[in-house]
């Protein structure tokens, strides 16, 4: 069970990182000159 928690943390973080890529890109489209 605890294994699943830590595997979940790893997977969740990298999903967050993928979302962060999208957010950084969106910021560029919205604000870059």
């Amino acid at each position, binding site marked *: 069970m605890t294994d699943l928690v830590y*595997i979940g*943390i790893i997977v969740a973080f*990298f999903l967050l990182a993928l979302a*962060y*890529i999208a957010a950084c890109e969106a910021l560029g489209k919205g*604000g*870059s000159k």
Partner: protein
Amino acid sequence: MTFNGIVQILLFFAVIVAVTKPMGIYLTRVYSGERTFLDPVLGPIERLLYRLTRLKATDEMNWKQYAVAMILFSLVSSLAVYALQRLQFFLPLNPQELAAPSEHSSFNTAVSFVTNTNWQGYGGEVTMSYFTQMSALTVQNFLSAAVGMALAIVFIRGISRFETDKLGNFWTDLVRGTLYVLLPISFFAAIFFVSQGVVQNFKPYETAQLTESFVVEVDKKDADGNVITDDAGENVKEDKTIDTQTIAQGPAASQLAIKMLGTNGGGFFNANSAHPFENPTPFSNFIQMLLIFLIPAGFTYTLGRMVKSQGHGWAVFGAMSVIFLAGVFATYAAESAGNPIFPAAVDQAVVGGNLEGKETRFGVTNSALFAVITTAASCGAVNAMHDSFTPLGGMIPMVNIMLGEVIFGGVGAGMYGILVMVILTVFIAGLMVGRTPEYLGKKIESYDIQMAMLYALIFPLIILALSAVSSISPNFGLTSLNNRGAHGLSEILYAFTSATGNNGSAFGGLNANTYWYNTTLGVAMLIGRFLMIIPMLAIAGNLAKKKMVPATLGTFPVNTPLFTVLLISIVLIVGALTFFPVLSLAPILEHFQMNAGQTF
């Protein structure tokens, strides 16, 4: 400080200067896909790898594709390292029949090695089987270093290219960095280390009979191994005679070589490079220090070569060198001065300074030099215990990490870190003269600075927030401390700084192998690596798309001593302004308390 010690430090620096150009040229050839002298041997292996994976080496990616590939690769790596640890009891090459590390320790170690941090909450020889050390940890030493190098090259490509969104192929950069740079140098370095006495075998541990036994006090346990307590709840103690010593063995040399070259720093043994089987001689110590700086120094020359401004590369090298040498001599001076609380009859000149926690094989000079090198670069290997340094001597390694690991820095990570600082430097210089900032023919615009600030701000946010929570939590934060007061705060602060900065060195004195520290330090490592890389890649992608702006009289030159001075100022100001308040509560306060006669 002695003349001999100063000469040793300057000799080390002279060797770094000498290897920077050849290493830089070689790195340029490798990442430009040009032919190298290793092609006849490694070329067929590289092409075979591409064929097996159906990879088209010439297919280039934009920054988002590159980032996604890097993230997915790191995700799979993290899960693999976690699984290998948890299954180690069932896997081969485990002569000591070591059980699996706990879940929280396995999580911490998995992300630690994938992020090139190599923070170790465990002791290698009592926790990891030979198979885990080799297949999980050493493999990640290569791959995480190769990822860092690939990212540095991407940033340099972003600067050197115009009107394109293509920055290279992540898989090609990963393969070429591993195959042409890390593997060959590590191979010969490992053989050298074996020649110096580093062990490389699969033998079970040896037991040696001590010539002189001694008695220690230990907790008394019942037949089931449970600690016996008295009526007051205190542990019952008993004397135990120690007359044997277990001598750990294992494939240490092969891990040691890449541990230093890849600025990973994770020791095969718990004592890391202070262990006689991991760093046996002053010569092995010198080569280990050299390996740490070899690639980061070379990258400065690669930068100049690829952006066609060699003067810029040397200007960046100069900024790194000035901060590095200042740190070395400050630490050396602090450690040579020793502890003023020693009785007045103790002559510091005879004692040689503060030798607590230091190997007599290396002495004060090489301990101070090693400590500054390993924290300037994001290596994290140690040959002395930083916890035992004087307050100011221990503060310099901590400050090195707080400056963002840009003083040569980790393999690749140091280069892209300093380039973000360069962007900020050019921006601030532009503000000073009221012109749009330009950097090597590119206008620096709002998006570049937004991303640079995301890069720069998340680092102190994580360190300070998690240190603060740990410092006020008696149930899970403070219980791990061996020292109280200012020194205790230094221990907590150093741990989160080291993790977030992906350094991995431990100040010591803090038991980090707990649910709280293993989990929070693991999360700090992930954020400190990947959430800083992504905005950096976004800057690289944005720079590559820009048109060439011809240089004018108003363009700020980035190949002059003035630029070097400004870059040093920005690095110091960003670090000092952010961390000075907490430093004043920890090592600086401790320094004054020590001079007033108080220890912790």
